[in-house]
């Protein structure tokens, strides 16, 4: 596939490593107190149509964000943007394992989550342009995406702030006797915050139906996990209070899907909360449209490893192994691009909210 020019860095659009990644993850570490985590998913058992669904979703996120980067210099997107590029498999793998009616909470880095849940592209781009037909009607912007129709209950720009809210939704679900499961997505930075511990304690106490998804991309802005934590096995930091946690690499969507399915089944059966730590890597700058994968704050070797473990490359390769033709893959790419074209055109045409909207919606 064609490389796409970033402003400072040529982002390899989809890197397919010559030596295909084996279908395996970093071995899940056994939990010291609880039974060992389930073994990695047997990827052969995943159907080919399902793989295509994964790929389509990964591609939609990657291409949408590349479009955002390309549009950004036009100043039509006047809002800070936090891209998910390189981390797509976390959102896609988990969301594909969800059921209709489940509720999800996210962060300001929410593009991937919104699209993985099936949030509409038109509402997505219109929100980037802060227009009337945006998913938050132009009031929230990139950091506050919402799509309750597909289960995305909200995204917050205050680190860790949605973890207790998701826990409260799980409390509601348990009081209501609802079968829904709640998923809280958050970054490694959120583990720094007290509300994480407090919420987990409460969720355990009440055995709430919640899955905590820790999206560990190695950095909180420019600060590495080891610069903020005395121990870096974040999935186990709350083992002492009884939180079952599992860590696996989050770039192989098949593995993420398998682990999420297992975890969600357990949570749905009433076994109480679980934590999935999915390790991945942020390719772009913390905030903004450009890549800083060569940034001085990063460790040498990280970039090469990240590009080798490109979530799209891995999934694409899996499809090729199943006999997919690159023609069909390219056709999907073209179809997605034109879908994005239409969404962008729609967003361009959508009007800005009228000034009369300023005071509307503070209360309902």
């Amino acid at each position: 596939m064609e490389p796409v020019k970033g402003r400072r860095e040529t982002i390899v659009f989809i890197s397919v490593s010559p030596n295909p990644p084996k279908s395996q993850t970093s071995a899940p570490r056994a939990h010291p107190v609880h039974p060992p985590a389930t073994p990695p998913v047997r990827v052969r058992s995943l159907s080919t149509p399902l793989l295509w669904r994964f790929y389509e979703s990964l591609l939609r996120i990657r291409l949408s964000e590349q479009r955002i980067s390309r549009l950004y210099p036009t100043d039509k997107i006047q809002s800070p943007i936090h891209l998910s590029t390189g981390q797509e498999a976390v959102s896609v793998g988990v969301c594909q394992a969800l059921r209709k009616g489940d509720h999800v909470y996210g962060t300001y880095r929410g593009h991937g989550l919104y699209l993985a849940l099936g949030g509409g592209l038109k509402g997505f781009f219109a929100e980037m342009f802060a227009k009337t037909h945006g998913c938050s009607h132009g009031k929230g912007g990139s950091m506050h995406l919402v799509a309750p129709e597909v289960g995305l209950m909200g995204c917050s720009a205050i680190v860790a702030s949605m973890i207790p809210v998701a826990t409260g939704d799980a409390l509601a679900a348990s009081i209501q006797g609802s079968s829904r499961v709640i998923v809280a997505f958050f970054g490694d930075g959120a583990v720094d915050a007290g509300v994480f511990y407090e919420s987990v304690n409460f969720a355990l106490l009440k055995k709430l139906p919640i899955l905590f998804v820790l999206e560990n991309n190695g950095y909180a802005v420019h600060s590495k996990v080891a610069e903020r934590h005395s121990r870096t096995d974040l999935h186990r930091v709350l083992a002492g209070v009884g939180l079952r946690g599992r860590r696996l690499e989050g770039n192989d969507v098949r593995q993420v899907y398998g682990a999420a399915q297992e975890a969600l089944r357990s949570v749905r059966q009433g076994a109480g909360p679980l934590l999935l730590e999915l390790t991945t890597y942020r390719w772009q700058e913390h905030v903004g449209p450009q890549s800083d994968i060569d940034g001085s704050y990063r460790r040498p070797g990280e970039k090469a490893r990240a590009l080798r473990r490109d979530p799209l490359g891995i999934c694409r390769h899996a499809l090729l192994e199943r006999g997919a033709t690159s023609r069909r893959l390219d056709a999907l790419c073209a179809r997605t691009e034109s879908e994005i074209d239409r969404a962008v055109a729609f967003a361009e045409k959508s009007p800005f909210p009228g000034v009369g909207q300023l005071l509307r919606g503070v209360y309902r």
Partner: protein
Amino acid sequence: MNSSRRRLMSYGETIRQTLHHAMDRDPSVLVMGIGVDDHKAVFGSTLGLSKDFGTRRVIDTPISEAAMTGVAIGAAVGGMRPVHVHMRCDFLYLAMDQLMNLAAKWSYMFGGRMSVPLVVRCVIGRSWGQGAQHSQSLQSFFMHVPGIKVVMPTTSADVQGLLLAAIADPNPVLVIEHRLLYGIQGMVPSVFRAAPFGQTHVRRTGKDVTVVANSYLVVEALKAAEFLSRHGIDIEIVDPVSLVPLNAGPIVESVRKTGRALVTDTSWVSCGTSAEIAALIAEKAWDRLRVPLRRLGNAPATCPVSQPLEKAFYPDAWKITRNVFEMMGRKFPEGKWKDDDIQFKGPF
């Protein structure tokens, strides 16, 4: 002050040099906060400090504002002079319990036997879709509770003097900066000297309307003044850089002179800084008011991202201008005015 002893310097750079000076002079000063030691260094305001003073005194913190505020308070009680930095004021909501229930109370509830020499710096965000959670100005909250001083430096000279005063002060002091001021140049004395608290500056003298403006709004008020003066209206701009303690004297004096008061503020109007100042004017200059006093702050809504709404949300030069025309009993001159028609690039 002799101009040969003054230098032109941006607001952000002034903060950096002032912190450097304070750390150099007093080994008990420490700087802590998220990202204070990275290459972006809180908009450059802490750049190079970790190199010069080491990571024991320039501490990158986890994203744990509630606990880290308590840690800063404890370090202060233990004999250090911490400067705790936040990239956005919005994150201070997480620090509220420690600041309000401990830092602000410490001196009084322990009978004045102890105090908390803590400085908290935070930056107001505005424009480019900062939105709901990256745009807030919290001075009104902090003014309400006794025990914590609050300053909003506007110029480079202000930030130099007030930051030094804050660090030297035995009490908790909140220093509220504004992101849009960081690039503006201003004259600063080449000798570092603390400015006294309780100063209110007259930024521009005028006879028709008193416009109270703080922080970045002084810039907007200066733009308005330029437009208004072209139309024969002369505003006086008064800037209470020190909100706690507040010196109402120059405000009252100005209103007694002009008979008209427009009080602007970077936060919301309701129960806000503008409400407090308006009340003081009502108490002390009521007899001189020729027209009802007015207030201008953020619209009573959450800050929206959409540009037209964002523009409608914030107080700006045009809104100041329109209010002043109305207070003068004059019609706003029709015309297709553009933002470029009035500018202020500095220096102060």
